[in-house]
């Protein structure tokens, strides 16, 4: 996976600010929120101070997945009723902090671009108290998610082997690169039937990017399909707490270890 590290851009930006890892998918229903929560948890277990920022402004549900009832959320920050720091909820069971989004708030999706940019700047400032920020982006190619992604250091694009997921992930990569050709984009294949199947899925998206965009986004990792994921989500308890040795948990832990190693090496 050494190709993943081959990005001077990444290292250069690390020096100046806390890395923000955006998690995007293009399409909903590929396990993006679960992956964001589990990645944040795994990074926290690796000893890093983590803020999980629920940027899924239209349909946020990080807090629901974790069974939290935050007093303040992103809507309060955007509405000027709260500062960003005050709206952060600790999540002791996972050892990381959360800034909850807000489910179904049309007002957040319809934010004017300048307001989203303000939010991104405030996030960059708040991030200084953390080692890494995990940014769970909205599903789909939607303007707010887009501008928030622009504020990130690197972006993990999550997909499954479904054609619609592949197509949407490709569209996200294509437009990201159009806006910024040096963007650090990496692919995560989720819900793979096996490692081999996951690699096949990655090769499809890699080949499509190579053919049409003349660029190959590296593979950040493969997460195997695992019924215990579903079980943990239903129990509103993180998979790393309930089943730390289950395949999906091990896969995300491996991705987190790679990221933590890379961030550590870059001296942040």
């Amino acid at each position: 996976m050494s190709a993943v590290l081959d990005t001077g851009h990444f290292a250069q930006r690390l020096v100046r600010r806390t890395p923000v890892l955006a998690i995007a998918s293009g399409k909903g229903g590929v396990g993006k929120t679960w992956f964001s929560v589990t990645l944040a948890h795994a990074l926290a277990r690796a000893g890093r101070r983590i803020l999980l920022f629920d940027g899924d402004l239209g349909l946020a549900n990080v807090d629901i997945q974790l069974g939290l009832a935050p007093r303040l959320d992103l809507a309060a920050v955007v509405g000027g009723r709260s500062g960003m720091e005050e709206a952060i909820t600790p999540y002791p069971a996972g050892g990381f902090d959360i800034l909850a989004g807000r489910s179904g708030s049309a007002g957040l999706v319809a934010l004017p671009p300048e307001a989203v940019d303000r939010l991104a700047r405030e996030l960059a400032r708040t991030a200084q108290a953390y080692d890494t920020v995990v940014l769970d982006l909205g599903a789909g190619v939607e303007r707010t998610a887009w501008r928030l992604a622009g504020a990130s250091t690197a972006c993990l694009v999550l997909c499954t082997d479904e054609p619609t997921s592949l197509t949407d992930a490709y569209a996200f990569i294509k437009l990201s690169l159009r806006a910024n050709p040096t963007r650090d984009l990496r692919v995560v294949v989720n819900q793979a039937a096996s490692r081999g199947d996951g690699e096949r899925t990655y090769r499809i998206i890699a080949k499509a990017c190579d053919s049409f965009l003349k660029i190959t986004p590296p593979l950040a990792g493969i997460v195997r399909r695992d019924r215990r994921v579903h079980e943990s989500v239903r129990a509103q308890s993180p998979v790393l707490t309930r089943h730390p040795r289950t395949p999906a948990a091990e896969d995300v832990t491996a991705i987190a270890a790679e990221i933590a190693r890379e961030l550590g090496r870059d001296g942040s």
Partner: protein
Amino acid sequence: MRLRTFSALRLAEAMAAVRAELGPDAVIISTEADERTGEARVIAAVEEAETEDAFLDHILFPPRDRPGRAHLSDTVANALDRTGAPARLAGRLIALARASEAADPALALAAALDERFAFAPLGVASDRPIALIGPPGAGKTVTIAKLAARAALAGRSVGLITTDTARAGGVEQLGAFAQAIGIGAAAAEEGPALTAALDLVRARDLRLIDTTGMNPLAEDELRRLAEILHAAGAEPVLALPAGLDPLDACEIARVAAVLGARRLIATRLDTVRRHGALLAAADGADLAVAELGFAPEILDGLAPAAPMGLARMVLQSHSASEFHPQARAADGSP
């Protein structure tokens, strides 16, 4: 990108299907043989026509970033954003403006404002006395003079009372205005004197009460103001000066609402470009917008509030601020 999987008994057949369905530009993403059946499976992709790209472009890159392609909702969005109104309120108004389907930005914004806010001008007559309350320097006295002048010009009788006896020159200022309009004014500190003063003018069409500037954080002063309003049986109307921080304006408006205010008069609108505080206050305290004070002139410096006027004001201050370079350019674009 369109992605398709083709299965056939032989690879050549699958390839032919790819060309037939996706055309000569299709790219073969993978070929494999099914382990069980031996069928050939080809995954192929073709880039969509530029229409899809144009659509995505439109979603992802706001027209403001692309000169020459101005768009209605972005005109409204940019104008609202520059008012400094809370993002959530701005977002709501933008959504309403879009939903209005009006072709003109001013009409679309007016429709949105009409939907979100109540507009209730004071008129030239009222059964209850009207007391203007508000922070010091809000322009209460001059607004009372404007309201009085308007009613007098409409042939109505007006009674003026001030309870602002503490401030140096408070009584004199109102007296001077009253004299200019050709009516009398009375000063009454509180309680019995106020009741007596109101009694003297009880037959007038419009009775206006000036009050001392209120400090929204000083409970004692607020209690005294509440007593005055109660003794007078007056409808408190908030005079809200432009240029406040939106959150401060909101707090003042909420205090006014607790004191019984249901309407506000926006004053000094000509002195600032950003009117977010007005929008935030009216929205946050659920106050109807009654009047817009946009010029210092007594005779025509006040206009009954209406959605279209407010919309024009928001859009105009936006265009008037163009010479301020909007330097916070696209640092958020990826």
